[in-house]
């Protein structure tokens, strides 16, 4: 089943609507495509943090939050993410499916999100407010520092930063610290008026609405404000040729070693060979009977948390494990051996079938969550090839054991990263 009806409003502005009575809330999400760079990540993060502080109609943050309470706890949020080398800025508004002042939720949300994006609180000079900018700069600087607090996420980031140090994909999720410090009201306002409206946009709405009304409301709220003309650049830059794998360790005040290992996989979501890579990754570390789970956790008892994932746009496979410090080398050995075994064609019919069914359930279940489904659609849009969940499932079922082995054998080990306890004898005690 194709969930979304697509409407091209103009070049660089498309609307995707799924009217359904399945949910109790209405979901509206705007995705803006941009080239992934320190500039876009840093500016987009700060800009969205400032835009969500208040609108011209409700300029003080407390007024704005009170307005959201009046709309039955409507929520507005943003995310700066990436698909390969494509940056995505998404702004989201959601609310319970309740009419407010005679207005349907889709109308309320379109107006709300449009006013957040295009009619924010400003100073008398027309600039974005200095006080909000200062506070949000300090908030983002703190978030940057706090990324280290979550040791798994930190190991993950340090792996990417090392592995992709010469590629945009390796940049910090919050952008560049020095650039952030330098941004004042003028450059941020110029980014907002001159750069943001030029990002090509995809707007998604999911909920119990009338399709014609929703399209009208969204057009009225966003057409003429998003002009979508700029080229977001390629989503996947060329893979560097195979080099010797790097082994990197860094220290932290942890109890466990956090291990993160990355491979290059020569594939992309749109390629015909992508399902074989995705399935190989699933068998490797993404389902409950995966190689990593069964061997690192169940057989060797070295980890509680272990697994892998695939980045479908750029073609990267990542494995992670939180392990006993004394067993770091053994754990690396086991993880690498499992990848080699997969590459050598050591795949049983049983695990092939189980992994296919497990992937199929995961893909179909995305239809139970508007956010998950919109995220899936965006991966398709970025990579210029969209599949319905059923099409994606049937592609997975067509993969053979030989193709899984061929995919895994084409992964080249790039970087092994370990976040090590600075003193492995200690433990935090409350």
């Amino acid at each position, binding site marked *: 089943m194709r969930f979304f009806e697509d409407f091209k409003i103009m070049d660089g502005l498309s609307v995707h609507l799924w009217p359904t009575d399945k*949910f109790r809330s209405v979901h509206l999400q705007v995705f803006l495509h941009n080239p992934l760079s320190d500039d876009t990540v840093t500016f987009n993060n700060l800009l969205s943090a400032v835009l969500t502080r208040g609108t011209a109609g409700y300029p003080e943050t407390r007024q704005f939050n009170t307005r959201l309470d009046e709309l039955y706890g409507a929520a507005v949020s943003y995310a700066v993410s990436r698909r390969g080398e494509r940056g995505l800025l998404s702004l989201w508004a959601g609310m319970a499916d309740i009419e407010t002042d005679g207005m349907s939720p889709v109308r309320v949300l379109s107006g709300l999100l449009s006013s957040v994006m295009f009619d924010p609180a400003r100073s008398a000079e027309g600039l974005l407010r200095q006080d909000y900018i200062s506070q949000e700069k300090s908030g983002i600087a703190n978030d940057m520092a706090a990324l280290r607090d979550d040791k798994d996420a930190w190991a993950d980031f340090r792996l990417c930063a090392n592995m992709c140090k010469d590629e945009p994909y390796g940049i910090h999720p919050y952008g560049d610290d020095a650039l952030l410090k330098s941004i004042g009201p003028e450059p941020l306002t110029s980014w907002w008026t001159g750069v943001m409206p030029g990002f090509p946009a995809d707007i998604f709405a999911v909920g119990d609405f009338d399709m014609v009304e929703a399209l009208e409301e969204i057009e009225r709220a966003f057409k003429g404000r998003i002009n979508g003309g700029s080229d977001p650049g390629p989503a996947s830059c060329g893979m560097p040729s195979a080099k010797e794998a790097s082994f990197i360790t860094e220290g932290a005040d942890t109890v466990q070693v956090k291990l993160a290992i990355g491979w290059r996989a020569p594939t992309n979501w749109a390629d015909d060979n992508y399902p074989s890579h995705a399935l190989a990754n699933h068998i490797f570390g993404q389902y*409950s009977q995966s190689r990593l789970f069964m061997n690192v956790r169940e057989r060797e008892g070295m980890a509680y948390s272990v697994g892998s994932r695939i980045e479908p746009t750029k073609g990267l496979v990542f494995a992670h494990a939180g392990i006993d410090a004394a067993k770091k080398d053994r754990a690396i050995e086991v993880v690498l051996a499992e990848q080699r075994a997969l590459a050598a064609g050591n795949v049983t019919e049983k695990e092939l079938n189980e992994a296919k069914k497990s992937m199929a359930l995961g893909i179909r279940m995305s239809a139970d969550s508007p956010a998950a489904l919109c995220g899936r659609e965006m991966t398709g849009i970025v990579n210029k090839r969209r599949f319905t969940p059923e099409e994606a499932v049937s592609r997975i079922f067509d993969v053979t054991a030989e193709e899984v082995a061929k995919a895994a054998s084409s992964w080249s080990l790039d970087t092994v990263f370990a976040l090590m306890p600075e003193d492995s004898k200690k433990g935090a005690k409350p």
Partner: protein
Amino acid sequence: MTGMYFKPFEKAEVRVLPSGLEIAVIRKPGFVRKYAVLATRFGSQITKMRFMGDREEYELPEGTAHFLEHKLFEREDGNMEEKFSELGATSNAFTSSDITGYLFCTDDKFIECLGLLFELVYKPAFSDIGVESEKEIIKQEIAMTRDDPDWMGYRTLLTLLYNRHPVALDPAGTVASVEEISAEVLYAAHDAFYGSDNMTLLVVGDVDAEDVFGMASVLESKYGSRKSEEVEITDVVEPRTVNITERVIRMDVARPIVWIGMKDDPGVFTSSAARRRMAASVLIETVFGPSSALNDELYTGGIIDDNLSYDEHYASDYGYLNLVAATDRKDELIGKVKEAMKAAATDGIDKESFDLALRRLTGGLLRSFDSEEFVAYEFLVDRFRGMDLMERPSILAGIKLEEVNEVARVVFEEGKISILTIEPVRNGRRA
């Protein structure tokens, strides 16, 4: 709140089988996933019990419920998770203070999975070898939580709030207590708490309730329904005031994280924990929520740079609220939070904030119902604590301002508040 219209709430259809097993079905039309949880009224807070007729109390090492949850998947010829995988389903389990739940989700193999779920929960195959090897995995789970500031903050705060109540115990236990667990301990706990009459099966998804009742009845008897061993659980008497008012721990964090816990009186809400809980949730929404004066002052004053996060937890014999924020200005944060608490306790909440909080909470509750996980977990937790998730919207609509003010007077009192700060390690050393 007049004129608010939303689609009527789902109803839970409930049936009790002759074995004593309770079955609840919440239908979610159009959902792909069918989600089932078989849960027992046994969690980490039971550490002592007495089998009927025995004089001696039987000690359960801390972490027994959680250990049992891990090991119940073990079979001589592999593990039960594998059988769910063969069907393309996913399975999992969780343990909290008063509940252990086993779940699966599937799109098209519901009846097969339901059979496996009964087999999983009713047919243990604990072995000494299996128990020994699991200890290493659980110790790594404990080690992992020691590196997690969120978990450490929350668990440590509970130890400050509670003197004796076992809700403060870590579900995983400790490295030492896990060592004491044996296959014999696990069988004793299974005999005591895994009888049909101590459990609830909940199904959420696009299913027909009558079909589920019929299937469950047949499958349950196939896998050996039985009553739980009769046991007495030792009650604890928990003082009104907190155990420890203030503590600092050090971890590898970027800046201080402050946790504030507020302890409600045990006993005052025994008649209706559900109602007391909703009143408490309105209270924290008005005092700490994004549109509160306090949040605004802290945020615009640069003391915090994200909205405060806060939560309430209620069962039949305890209730507490908690608040958490990262800040470089800890003393100012704590000072202003205490001022706001004092003002709420003394002057009460204004009507306008109260009405707004009701709107926000009602809308939030409706949105949460889009998540099957939320519905499943909250329904079971409520049920085991004598509450009903499906009644939350109507209880909320009936909450009076005076009830909220009464909670404020009790939980914001001196001696009812604990403050934990996680300070960054300095020079790479934990203090």
